[in-house]
Structure formats: structure tokens, C-alpha cells
């Protein structure tokens, strides 16, 4: 890309050079013509002179030569005249001798300051000799000089004119365009569309150009204003949307919190419902054992009667003793099942007690036992109950600070998940020798207490393992799971300055370990 000025200059140079070239060619031709004319003139003159000198040679009269040459201007014009006879002898001469060696055939020789003509002197076909004339050519030189001078000055004049014209052209075209250019650059740089483009123009084109630009800028200004308006609207819109979104988010969070607490309630509710019914099993046994005892009292009375009347057989005695054994057995059943009912109620109560989020010292193994019991009963009371071998592996007497309610709720959820997974596996592997095993272990090291709960249920797919801790992730049918359990457990683990780790292999096992800090203190709350 070239500057406009450069282009103008280039064409100026081209034009000037062309003119100069043409001038020189014309001048050359002119000078050439001049020289030819000059030579011809001299040649003609020398011919006339030669004619006149015929007699001189014919009559060998030097006088004749002298009188003839006397009229010649030797001051300005003629330099020398020599007359040679046919034998090559100088017959007569005037002026300085001519030193130039001329060939016989040469007729004219033009030098810078003189011209020499050599003309043979003939008479009626006979050669008598030749005349050599040397004359000044300063007239010609002067003419040429003048001619060249004139041409040169004309050229200079033309050049100056063109240069001036070029400058003027630049001023008229380039300057306004450059001005416009600068203005637009300025606008672009400052992002200020309000800059006015000067309106004084002497050229139609640049005026039109600047008008177009002014119009363009006006359009741009309009668009900019529109954009700004739109932006403003957009900002407002975004603000509104953001406000709405954040309120929605708040609602969601509130909703989620509500759901989490509902999950706690729901799991409690379903556990409680299951357990309330579960109590009916020991109650059933207690009530009917009591019936046996009460029946026995009647039997005792009738036997007593028989005893008094001494009217009894060996069989009666045997039966009576047998009945006593039954009573013994019944009271054992009553006692066992009272304890069982008591346990169920206790674990229910421990669930519903709401001394929320209080740190207290707890014997962790009893917390685990309660949870296992509760879950087991709940599972047994619901559909598809299974037998479960429960293996306990406790490091004894671990008493640490914890949030007992939260921890127990967490354990209940973990164990509940385990039972569910094992029930599922039992269903899937119906008829095979699958037997459910739940391993619960409790260990304590320097800074942490670890509770591990391992089941041999359906396990968790590797791909889903990450998701288990997410709230609302559940693989259970609606009504059976909310997917909030494990996320709650995770929160609880974190509240205990610990962590929750899930390890699993599909159709093999799932091991959930919850780690809690031993040094949880009231200040952490």
C-alpha cells in the first residue's frame, strides 16, 4: 500500500521525465538539422569559392587569389584558406596553416570551434587542385548553446510548474483526506463519536467523502445510543433475573433443608411405624404366654382338688409337672420378650429424643448396637425380611465426644441401606445359598475413631459411587428412598471433623466407614 502523496509524486516524476525526454529528442533533431544546414551552407560557399579560384590556378596568379580573398572577413569568420595544385603543392594560402590531416575524400569536417571544407577545383572535367577553407563555427556553437539553454530552461520551468501543481494537488486532495483520516483515527482512539468533522472543503469529492463519514458517524451514534439503551434494558433484565434466581436459589435451599429434615422425620417415621408393629411380635408372645400361666392357675386348682381327694393318677402327676415346666418356659418367654419390647421402645425413644446437636460423651459401641437393633427390627417388620448374621468387632470402651443423635441417625441410615442392599441381593439370588452378613467394626487410633459397616449386599456400581453422597441421589423406587441419607451422613461426618468413605464392589460388598475426630470439643460448635 502506497501513500497518495507518493503516487502523485511518482506520476509527476514520470510526466516530467517524459516531457524532458521528448524535449531532448526534439532538440537533438533540431540541432542535427542545424548542423546539416550549416555544413551544407559552408559546402556551397566553398564550392563558389573553388569556382572563383579556377582562374587562380589556371593562370597561376597569386594576385587573383589575394584579391579574391581580400573581401573575406578574417577577423570573425575565416581562419585560413589554402589552395593546393594538382601535384599536391601549396600554391597559395592565407591565415594560419591548417594542421588537420584530411583524407582526399573528406569534404567537410566540423569541430567544436571551426569547420573545414575541402573542395576540388575543376575546369571542363580537368582537376587543377583543391581549396581548403577553415572557418569559425562559433556562430553555430552559439546557436546550439542558445538552443540548449532555451530548452533546458523551458524544461526547468515545466518541472517547477508540475512540482508546484503536484504540491497543490496534494494540498487539495491529500491534506483533506489525511485530515479526515486523522479525525476518524481520533474517533476510533477516543471512542468519542461526538467529534465533528470539519466542513470547509474546496473539492467536491472530499466534501462528499467527509459528508459520507459524517453521516456514517451519525448512524453509528444512533446505533450506539440504541445499543446503550438496549444494554441498559439488558442490565435491568439481568438484574431482575438475578434477583429472581437468587430468590429461587434461596427457596431451593430452604426447600432442601426442609427436605433434609423431612428425610430425617420420614426415616424416623417409617422406622417408628415399623417398630410400633414390631412390638406386636413380642407382645403376641407375652400375651399368649400369660394365657398359659393363667390357664395353669386353673389347672392347679383342679389338681389341688384331685390331690385333696387323693384321686389322681401317675399320668396326672406327670402332666402337672409337665405343666409346671410349661409355666417356667412361658415366664422365660415373657421375660425375654418384655426385654425385647423394652429394647425396641428404647431405640425408638432414642430416635425421637430431640436434644438437638448437643455434644456429649458417649460409649460408641452402645450407639452402634442401638442402631443395629433398631434397623434390624425395622427390616424384620417390613416386607421381605431376611436373616442376617451380624458380626461385631468392637474395640471396647471407646468413649468420645460426639453429637450422639446425629451420629446414631447416620448409623441408622448406613445400616438401613445395608439391610436394603442385602434384601435386594436375596431377592435377586432367590434360591441360591446367599446368606446376608453384616460386619460392624469399631476402632480407635490416636486422633480418630473409625466405625466400619460392611454388608454383602448388591454393592454400588463404580460409576455411581461418586453420586452416592449427592443429595437426592437414590436408586430406590419412589417411596422407599429420598436419596438424602448419605448426604446427611456426610454432613454429620464433617461436623465431627471426620470423613465418610464408601468402598464397594458390585454384587460383592459395600463398606461404609465413618471417621470421627476424638478431640471434638464444645468449642467446635
Amino acid at each position: 500500500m502506497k501513500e497518495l502523496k507518493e503516487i502523485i509524486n511518482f506520476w509527476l516524476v514520470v510526466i516530467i521525465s517524459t516531457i524532458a525526454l521528448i524535449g531532448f529528442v526534439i532538440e537533438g533533431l533540431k540541432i542535427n538539422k542545424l548542423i546539416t544546414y550549416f555544413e551544407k551552407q559552408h559546402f556551397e560557399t566553398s564550392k563558389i569559392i573553388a569556382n572563383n579560384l579556377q582562374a587562380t590556378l589556371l593562370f597561376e596568379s597569386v594576385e587573383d587569389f589575394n584579391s579574391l580573398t581580400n573581401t573575406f572577413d578574417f577577423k570573425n569568420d575565416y581562419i585560413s584558406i589554402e589552395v593546393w595544385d594538382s601535384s599536391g603543392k601549396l600554391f597559395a594560402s592565407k591565415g594560419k596553416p591548417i594542421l588537420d590531416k584530411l583524407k582526399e575524400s573528406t569534404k567537410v569536417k566540423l569541430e567544436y570551434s571551426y569547420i573545414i571544407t575541402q573542395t576540388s577545383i575543376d575546369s571542363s572535367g580537368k582537376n587543377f587542385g583543391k581549396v581548403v577553407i577553415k572557418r569559425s563555427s562559433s556562430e553555430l556553437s552559439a546557436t546550439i548553446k542558445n538552443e540548449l539553454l532555451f530548452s533546458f530552461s523551458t524544461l526547468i520551468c515545466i518541472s517547477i510548474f508540475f512540482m508546484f501543481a503536484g504540491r497543490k494537488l496534494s494540498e487539495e486532495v491529500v491534506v483533506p483526506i489525511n485530515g479526515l483520516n486523522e479525525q476518524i483515527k481520533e474517533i476510533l482512539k477516543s471512542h468519542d463519536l461526538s467529534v465533528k468533522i470539519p466542513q470547509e472543503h474546496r473539492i467536491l469529492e472530499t466534501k462528499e467523502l467527509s459528508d459520507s463519514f459524517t453521516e456514517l458517524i451519525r448512524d453509528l451514534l444512533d446505533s450506539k445510543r440504541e445499543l446503550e439503551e438496549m444494554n441498559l434494558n439488558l442490565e435491568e433484565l439481568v438484574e431482575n433475573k438475578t434477583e429472581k434466581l437468587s430468590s429461587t436459589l434461596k427457596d431451593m435451599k430452604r426447600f432442601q433443608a426442609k427436605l433434609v429434615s423431612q428425610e430425617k422425620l420420614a426415616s424416623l417415621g417409617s422406622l417408628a411405624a415399623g417398630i410400633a408393629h414390631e412390638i406386636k411380635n413380642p407382645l403376641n408372645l407375652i400375651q399368649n404366654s400369660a394365657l398359659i400361666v393363667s390357664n395353669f392357675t386353673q389347672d392347679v386348682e383342679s389338681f389341688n382338688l384331685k390331690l385333696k381327694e387323693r384321686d389322681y393318677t401317675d399320668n396326672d402327676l406327670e402332666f402337672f409337672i409337665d405343666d409346671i415346666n410349661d409355666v417356667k418356659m412361658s415366664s422365660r418367654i415373657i421375660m425375654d420378650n418384655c426385654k425385647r419390647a423394652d429394647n425396641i421402645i428404647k431405640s425408638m425413644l432414642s430416635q425421637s429424643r430431640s436434644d438437638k446437636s448437643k455434644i456429649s460423651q458417649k460409649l460408641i459401641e452402645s450407639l452402634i448396637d442401638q442402631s443395629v437393633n433398631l434397623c434390624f427390627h425395622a427390616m424384620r417388620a417390613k416386607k421381605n425380611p431376611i436373616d442376617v448374621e451380624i458380626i461385631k468387632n468392637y474395640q471396647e470402651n471407646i468413649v468420645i465426644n460426639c453429637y450422639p443423635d446425629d451420629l446414631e441417625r447416620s448409623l441408622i441410615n448406613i445400616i438401613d441401606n445395608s439391610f436394603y442392599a442385602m434384601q435386594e441381593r436375596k431377592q435377586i439370588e432367590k434360591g441360591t445359598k446367599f446368606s446376608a452378613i453384616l460386619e460392624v467394626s469399631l476402632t480407635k487410633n490416636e486422633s480418630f475413631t473409625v466405625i466400619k459397616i460392611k454388608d454383602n449386599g448388591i454393592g454400588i456400581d463404580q460409576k455411581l459411587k461418586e453420586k452416592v453422597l449427592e443429595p437426592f441421589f437414590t436408586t430406590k423406587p419412589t417411596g422407599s428412598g429420598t436419596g438424602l441419607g448419605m448426604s446427611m451422613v456426610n454432613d454429620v461426618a464433617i461436623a465431627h471433623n471426620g470423613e465418610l468413605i464408601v468402598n464397594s464392589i458390585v454384587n460383592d460388598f459395600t463398606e461404609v466407614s465413618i471417621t470421627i475426630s476424638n478431640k471434638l470439643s464444645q468449642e467446635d460448635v
Partner: protein
Amino acid sequence: MTLPINIAVVDDEKDFHLLFKMTFKKMIRTGDIFVNDFLNGIELLDFLELKHDEIKIIILFTDINMPEMDGISLCKVVSERYPDIEIYIASAYGSRQYMDEAKDAGAKNFFTKPIDFKVIGEIIQDKVAEVRKKAS
């Protein structure tokens, strides 16, 4: 039909078996009834499969909530394969849904726990009387 009539009791709690036998000890002693107890439905089905021709079970008492096989499924299978057996079902849950399910599965009656053994006693005695009457 001859005495003793064979009764099957299916419950996952051994104490329930004991209790059942203690409660109806007199009838057992007199040879009116014989109680066959099973810890789950599979055990009963296996038994029936093997001994049905030999020991004719007439009355079946079963719990609903049991491992291996729930009472309702058991009820379905038994009423289908052995339509002569009278089935009584018991559960801690007394919901309508359970009762309907039990009836649909072929149960003659549904008891809510705690079970009133006197009612069961009456059912058994009625059966015994019926058999006696037929025999004489």
C-alpha cells in the same frame, strides 16, 4: 380324615412354636391334634412335597413377615397346590391391604397380632369335632 389332625405352624420365631404347642398341649396329649412346626415357608413346602401323602396337613397357621418367603406368597403356593389345607394368616400389620391380599391369596382368615389363641383353639376344636363326627 382321622385323628390326630395335622396342623402346620410357620413362624420364624421358635418361641412361637413352643407357645403354640404349650397352649394346645391338652389336645396334643389326647391325640386330637399334631403340631408340625416350620421356621419358614420353604421348609413347609419341602415337607409337603415329601410327606403330603403320608401326613395330611389340614390347618396351616402362618406369619406374614418372615425371611426367605413371606406368608402371602406361601399362602398362594399352598392354596394352589394343596387346596384341601385351610390357611390362617397372622401379621403385626392389620392394614386393609394386607387383609385383602391374604384373602386373595386363599387364606380363610386373617389375624392381627397379638393373636388371640382362644379363637385359634376354637377353630381347631371345630375341626376336631368335624372329623369326629365324620368318623362316627
